[in-house]
Structure formats: C-alpha cells, structure tokens
C-alpha cells in the first residue's frame, strides 16, 4: 500500500495502463509538458514520450474527434477535457458521434476511449468552471459514466475504464484532488457498474457520488451519534452501468431512500435512482423518496454562496433527520 492523493491516483492509474498497453495514448490541453492544470498527469510525458502524451490546441471538438477516430481504428485513447463544463463545446462529439456510432453501424465500430474531466464545485471557480455534469453524460445512451470518490477507486476505475471497449466518461472531482488514501502497490483493476456500500445501516439508504460521499458519511456518523439513526451510505461510483441490485437491496433493508447529488436539481442522477426505486421497490418504501441536491441555479463564485448551494454535511444531516421523524 502507498498513500496517494486523488490527483496522484489519476496519474498512477493512467501510467499503469500505459505501461500495460503500449498502444494506449493520451491527449489534451496542457496535459503533457505542464502535467495538467490540476497536475493530474505529471510525469506521464517523461515516461511515455511526446508521441503518446500530446499537448493539443484549444480545440475540444478536434480533441474528441481525434480520440474517436483513433479508437475506432485500433488505437485506444485517453482524452482530457480540462473542466467538465467544457464538455458543452464538444457535446456533439460525445452525445451524437461517440455515443451513437456503434449502434448506428450495427456494431461495426468500437470506441475504446476514456474522456477524463475535472468535475464539480467547492473550488470557488464560478458558474462556468464548477458544474457537476454527470447527469449530462448519464442521459446519453451509449456512454458509460463513472465518478470515483477515493484514490483507490480512482486507480481501479481508471484501469477498468481504459480496458472497457466502450466510451467511458470519467469524472474526477476537483475538490477531491488533494485528498489522500491508500492504494495497493500491485496492479489495480476495478469493475464498472459496481456501487460500494461504504457504511452499513438499517434505517435509511443514502446514495451519494464523488465529493458527496465523504459528506454523506460524515452526516451518517453524526446521525448515528446524535440521533441514533442508522444510515447506510452507498457510493454509487458508476452511473452507467448502474448497480441497481445494490441499490434495491439496500432499500429493501432500510425502506427509505435519500440521494445526495451535486448536479443541479432537475433531471439529475438522483431523479433516475428515485424513479427506479419508486417503480421497482415501491412496496418496500416506508416514506417519501427524497433528493438532496444543489438548487436549480448556476453556481455562484463567492465562497459563502457556493457553500450554501452544494449539499453540505449539515443539510444532509437535517434532511434525513427531519424526514425520518
């Protein structure tokens, strides 16, 4: 075991896979010489050289086009889109080209590619650099979507994403980059589509993702200590494929579901989980299905406002407590 930061885990995961597969390449803005604006690709240029680790112009459509065309002709690719907000400037490449071309061609082409991007708020970057857009990706058929919350999961899911023959959108959370955790020193390979029960409990299920996972855990601890409420916390990890088994089994046990999501309220991944449970586990439920979300607003820049916008430990705590009362 080694202790790595989440940002180091990104580089470690990529490096592990680039060592394994000499055909794997990487591209993006400032990813090579500078090691990425979030320092998540430090060392890769030196180890793998400028043919495999490429700095690009500010041309997100060309970046993803390069990734798509290369992957469909035998060269697997990791592409970085610096901030997930910028997925919007290349959304056609993602939603209409990469996601749909396999189906449109009845399986003639595959896209072994990973689109990595820094997602999420709490860094005071304002409305155009702070969004959580995992729901944008989840709603597009043909994509796979993951968002790790720990360094170990980052390495494991990076490996799984790279080895998966389908396009994977890989959301790295900016406000987790500095967090630390143990990562095995052997080869680490996770599986897409597996949620993780990060805390067991019996009174309510709380499903969370990325930065919301540690917050949900902290709220759960407090609920236990202060209110005697036993909360099961699920780290969803993979939105597509979605581990509905773990989710439904947990709700069967607890009879209550709360989701904690950073994306704005309407049509978020929380709504999807709620809808699945509201249809398939309706008769197990003992009370309302509750979403805890960022309000349906752009994110403000000021620290005091941003802290009010994104679900906090307090808000999770209060919502679960008052709803279970």
């Amino acid at each position, binding site marked *: 075991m080694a202790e790595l930061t989440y940002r180091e885990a990104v580089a470690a995961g990529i490096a592990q896979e680039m060592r394994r597969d000499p*055909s794997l*390449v990487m591209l993006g803005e400032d990813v090579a010489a500078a090691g990425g604006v979030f320092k998540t690709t430090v060392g890769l240029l030196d180890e793998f050289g400028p*043919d495999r680790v*490429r700095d*690009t*112009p500010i*041309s*997100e*459509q*060309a970046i*993803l*086009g*390069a*990734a*798509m*065309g*290369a*992957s*469909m*002709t*035998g*060269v697997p*690719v990791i592409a970085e889109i610096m901030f997930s907000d910028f997925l919007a400037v290349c959304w*056609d*490449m993602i939603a*209409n*080209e990469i996601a749909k*071309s*396999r*189906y*449109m*061609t*009845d*399986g*003639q*082409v*595959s896209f072994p590619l990973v689109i990595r991007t820094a997602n999420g708020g709490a860094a005071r970057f304002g409305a155009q650099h702070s969004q959580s857009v995992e729901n944008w990706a989840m709603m597009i*058929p*043909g994509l*796979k979507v993951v968002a790790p919350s720990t360094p170990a999961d980052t390495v494991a899911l990076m490996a799984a994403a790279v080895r*998966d*023959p*389908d396009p994977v959108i890989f959301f790295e959370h900016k406000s987790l980059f500095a967090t630390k955790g143990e990562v095995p020193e052997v080869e680490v390979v996770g599986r897409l*589509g597996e949620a993780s029960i990060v805390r067991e409990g019996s009174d309510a299920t709380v499903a969370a993702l990325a930065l919301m996972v540690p917050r949900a855990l902290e709220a759960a601890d407090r609920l236990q200590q202060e209110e005697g409420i036993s909360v099961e916390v699920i780290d969803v990890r993979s939105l*597509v*494929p*979605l*581990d*509905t*088994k773990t989710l439904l089994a947990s709700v069967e046990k607890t009879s209550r579901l709360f989701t904690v999501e950073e994306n704005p309220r309407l049509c978020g991944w929380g709504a999807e989980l709620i809808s*699945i449970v509201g249809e398939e586990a309706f008769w197990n439920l003992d009370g309302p299905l509750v979403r805890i979300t960022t309000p349906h607003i752009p994110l403000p820049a000021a620290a005091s406002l941003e802290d009010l916008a994104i679900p906090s430990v307090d808000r999770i705590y209060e919502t679960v407590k008052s709803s279970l009362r």
Partner: protein
Amino acid sequence: MYDYSSRPSRLPLPVDERMASADIDLGQRKSIYRSLQELRQFEKRAHDLFLQNLVKGTTHLSLGMEAVAAGFGAAMRPDDYTFATYRGHAHALARGMEMGPAMAELLGRSNGVLGGKGGSMHLTDVSRGMMGSYAIIGAHLCIANGAAWSAQMRGSGQVTVCFFGDGTTNIGAFHEALNMAKVWQLPVVFVCENNLYMEYTPIDLITAVPHPAADRAASYGLESVIVDGNDPDAVYLAAGKAIGRAREGGGPALIEATTYRTGGHSRADPAKYRPLEEVEAWAQRDPIPMYHARLLGLGVAEGELSSIERDVAADVDAATEFAKAGEEPTGEALLTEVYADGSSRWRN
C-alpha cells in the same frame, strides 16, 4: 421577391480538354466509368424507391457530383479510410460497398449493411475502409483526423480522405480539424465538394470568401487547391497527388472540388431556388456524358461502354430485389449493439 433563383447564375468552367491526354491508364479510366455508372444508377433507383415510399425518412443524392467520389475511389488504396456525410451513398459505393446491402439499408431492412439501424445517412462498411457517414455537419472532419492519427502512430501508411460540402466550411469543427491536421502533419486529405449551395441557401451569400475551402487553406498552412469536380480525370489526378504526398509523410491537404447537384438537397426537394440558366448550364457539364465522350475519343468502343452500363443496370436490379426481399428488422435488433458486449444493458 427574396427569391434566390433570380440571382445571377454561377456557371461551370468549360471542360479542360487537356485532361484527355493526361497520363492515366485506359483500364483505370474504364473502371472509373463503371464506378460513375454504379453511383448514378444506384442513386436514381434509390430516388425512385423513395418516391414509391419504400425508402422512408430521407435521402441525399450525389447525382451530378459522382466524379468526385469515383475519382477519389480510384486513387485510394483498399485499406485507406473514407469519411463521408449524410450525402454518402456515392462514397460508400466508390469504396466497394455492395449494392444489395446498401440498398437494403435504405429500405430499412435487416439485410441492410447496418441492419436497418443506420439508414441512408449513415452508410458504413469498415471492411472496405468506409468508416462512416455522419449527419451532423462538421464532426467527421475531426473524426477523420483521429483515423489519420491512428494510421500515423501505427505506421500503417493508410491515408484518410474526408469529404464534405461547401456549407460545412463555415462551422467551427472545420477550423479545429484543419488546424490540428496540419500541426500534427496527419495523413489526411480533406475534400470540399463545392456544389454552390448548402441546403437551399447559395454558399456565397453566407461565406466571407469566394472559395469557401481553397481561400482558407492558408489559415492552416496549406496550399490552395481547386479542382474541376465534374471531371473524373482531374479529380483522380489531384487525389493521387494529395494522397501520395500524405502517404509519404507530407501531411494533410485541402482540395476544393467544384461541382453541382443535378437534383435537390434531399428527399423530394425540387431545388427551385436555383436560377434555371445555372441548372441548365451545369446539366451540360454532367460528368457522365462528358466522360463517355472522352473515352470514345480515346478509342474505347461504344459497345464496351454500353455493356458496362448494362452490367451495372443488372447489378442495380439485383440489389433492388435483394433489398426488397429483406425482412423488416424486429424487436430483437432494437436492443443490440449499444455497447460492445452486443447489448444495451445499462444496469444489472
């Protein structure tokens, strides 16, 4: 009053008679002639079937523009890559896609080349290097770069050729793709088929320069190249040159091929927005009768050409029968091939 058809016509150049004596093997020319016939006859049939409501949705034909696809098709190596638009039948056939599965795809049948999932706008046949037809303007230029990058990295010597229209030169992806291609010296040839119109709007009214592609080549450090897109020989030569250079590591090229579509933009568009005189002048420059005459001039027997024409007609008939005999795809197909495991499973 605001009718574009009253604007001055943009007339074709006269045929460059020197092309007749260009150094092109006669066998090659005959096979280009066959290709022209295939594209023409296939698409005329597709249009008939559309009017009979057997082809649903839409079609975008290359009638009148076949010289570009045929000329490039002849100049490409079998393992080279083609990227085309929704107006992609001609390019697919020019790379050797079988007519039967192509026609069946237009009819939405399960024996279609895409099992009915893609339709007219998305013809793809990876086994022939036909890497897809893309229906949203601009994207495929970027994707073509990726295939070229892959070939460059694998050292395969494959060249990628990417076709698109004049209207496409005004979308952002064009700019991003051309710049990256040059910076990375990718083996890719971009071919603008300038047929003077986007859908119904004349290209010169919405473009800052007269030659939408050629006048922009310098922005990407590229040579400005204009070729007569209605002359198969001229296209073949320009294609050979650009592809050859790209194959040798000389980097990308941008070629503007001037041409004209005989019919409308899509479906049953009567294309009334064009001046009559212009339509007629270009009809005089139809590549097929011109090429027919050129081959006769080069000593090919009339009978040999008409036998090619008859052969192709029989192929098109057979393809039509093949297509009509196909089943309509059923529910099973609906949920396959979203993911590489063949399924559409997004949950456990």
